[in-house]
């Protein structure tokens, strides 16, 4: 069987929803409908051995998702305090063309890694975008619920709800979401004093997926670098591929598990060394589960009421005892 999940088998896998999302208008309504999909977590496998760096995927992403890109009506407002808040404006015609990093207008880029491993030189192209984490801190801790997860595991930032505070970017281990100032809900609230635009990132073509179609970057790739399917199947394939090619895996354990698994012939620490990193150009280091420490407190939250009940019972037993003693005393 071909290692690529073809469009037909993708559909056959039962991953189609009613396909109503696109038809039913834009904004919140369609997002909600898409979120009603089956709870099969989708995962992608990227075989870095195959990527030739042609950037067809980058072009397709920009084309297919162009209608989701921000369209500011004029320059962003002056943010206060001026020395503290940086605006990010990628909307000029020149900046919109940037494709060598993540921007609000470029949700996928090819990161090049050149170096030497075991005495042999290598040159690898790594498609980089949101990892769609299983327990995504960006969505778990978004204070407005703007970053949210669909039942199929896709993590999306809703542009009508996002305030652009960039908390998601701060807590994302790869600092993926990118800000465009001068758009979004905050302009209708306190534009200068709270919020700062909208955060943008790969949404795994959630609308196409809801219709049972492949994400654009996967569909157009001439080398079939990526495949998508239920997570357990993709994990198995990634392990098989790594076993067959003596390859290395990234994204399986990172941040407690993601829905993006890379298999590379070169270890990821070597790749990470070879990368050009910085704003819009994420690292490839091992990543601890960001939510793990916070989630340990759930136990404390669960037993806290029991502790309160025991405390109150103890106190009133004592009071009752004292009252009883008083009553027993002959007056």
């Amino acid at each position, binding site marked *: 069987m071909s290692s690529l999940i073809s469009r037909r088998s993708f559909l056959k896998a039962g991953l189609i929803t009613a396909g109503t999302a696109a038809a039913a208008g834009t904004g919140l309504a369609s997002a*909600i409908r898409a979120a009603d999909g089956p709870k099969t977590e989708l995962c992608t496998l990227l075989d870095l051995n195959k990527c030739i760096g042609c950037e067809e995927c980058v072009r397709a992403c920009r084309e297919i998702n162009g209608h989701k890109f921000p369209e500011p009506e004029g320059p962003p407002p002056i943010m206060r305090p001026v020395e503290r808040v940086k605006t990010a404006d990628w909307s000029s015609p020149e900046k919109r063309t940037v494709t060598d990093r993540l921007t609000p207008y470029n949700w996928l880029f090819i990161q090049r890694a050149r170096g030497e491993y075991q005495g042999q030189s290598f040159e690898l192209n790594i498609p980089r975008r949101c990892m769609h984490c299983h327990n995504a801190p960006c969505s778990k801790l978004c204070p407005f619920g703007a970053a949210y*997860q669909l039942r199929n595991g896709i993590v999306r930032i809703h542009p009508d*709800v996002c305030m652009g505070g960039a908390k998601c970017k701060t807590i994302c281990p790869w600092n993926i979401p990118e800000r465009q100032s001068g758009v979004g809900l905050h302009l209708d609230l306190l534009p200068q004093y709270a919020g700062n635009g909208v955060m943008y990132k790969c949404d795994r073509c959630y609308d196409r997926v809801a219709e049972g179609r492949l994400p654009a970057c996967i569909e157009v790739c001439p080398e079939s670098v990526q495949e998508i399917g239920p997570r357990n199947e993709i994990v198995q394939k990634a392990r098989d591929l790594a076993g067959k090619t003596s390859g290395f895996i990234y994204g399986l354990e990172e941040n407690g598990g993601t829905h993006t698994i890379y298999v590379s012939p070169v270890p990821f620490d070597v790749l990470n060394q070879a990368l050009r990193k910085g704003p819009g150009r994420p690292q490839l280091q091992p990543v601890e589960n960001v*939510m793990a420490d916070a989630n340990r407190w759930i136990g404390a939250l669960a037993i806290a009421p029991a502790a309160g*009940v025991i405390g109150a019972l103890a106190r009133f037993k004592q009071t009752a005892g004292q009252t009883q003693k008083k009553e027993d005393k002959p007056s």
Partner: protein
Amino acid sequence: MKPHQANRLSEWLYLAAMAVAFFTGFGNMPLYQRYYVTDLPGFGWAANFMINVEVHYMAGAVLLALAAYFIVSWIFLRKEGLRLSQTGRIRAIVLGLALLTGLAMAVKNLSGVVYPLPLLIAMNFLHMSLAVCYLLLALGCRIARAPWLRKNQR
């Protein structure tokens, strides 16, 4: 522990946990760095969202324990003819709902738990607005010296 000591301890715990819960609650929004709060000596940690959420959970756990403590106490006190005052009842409902929505948000943060978007937005909005309502109510009642309890007249 004597009853008056228990009262003082629970009141002290309540005030401290409330202060921490509100501080870290607002700190869940990216505001403190913007508005220099994290520059204050001793407040640098508030810039770290992950520490912030853990401290919020700690305060939440103390408040949940106190809520259970006061509910059981109230059952005992009813027997002694004490009732919740009108403002006490309103405060109890608002605080109870704020705690429950907070708990629902903590559950949502667990791995594998996914709330649909409308529920997620509703929970965020409700938790935030209930907490702010409670803050205003509690401050108002403190200023007006409105008690939580009253003696049953009948």
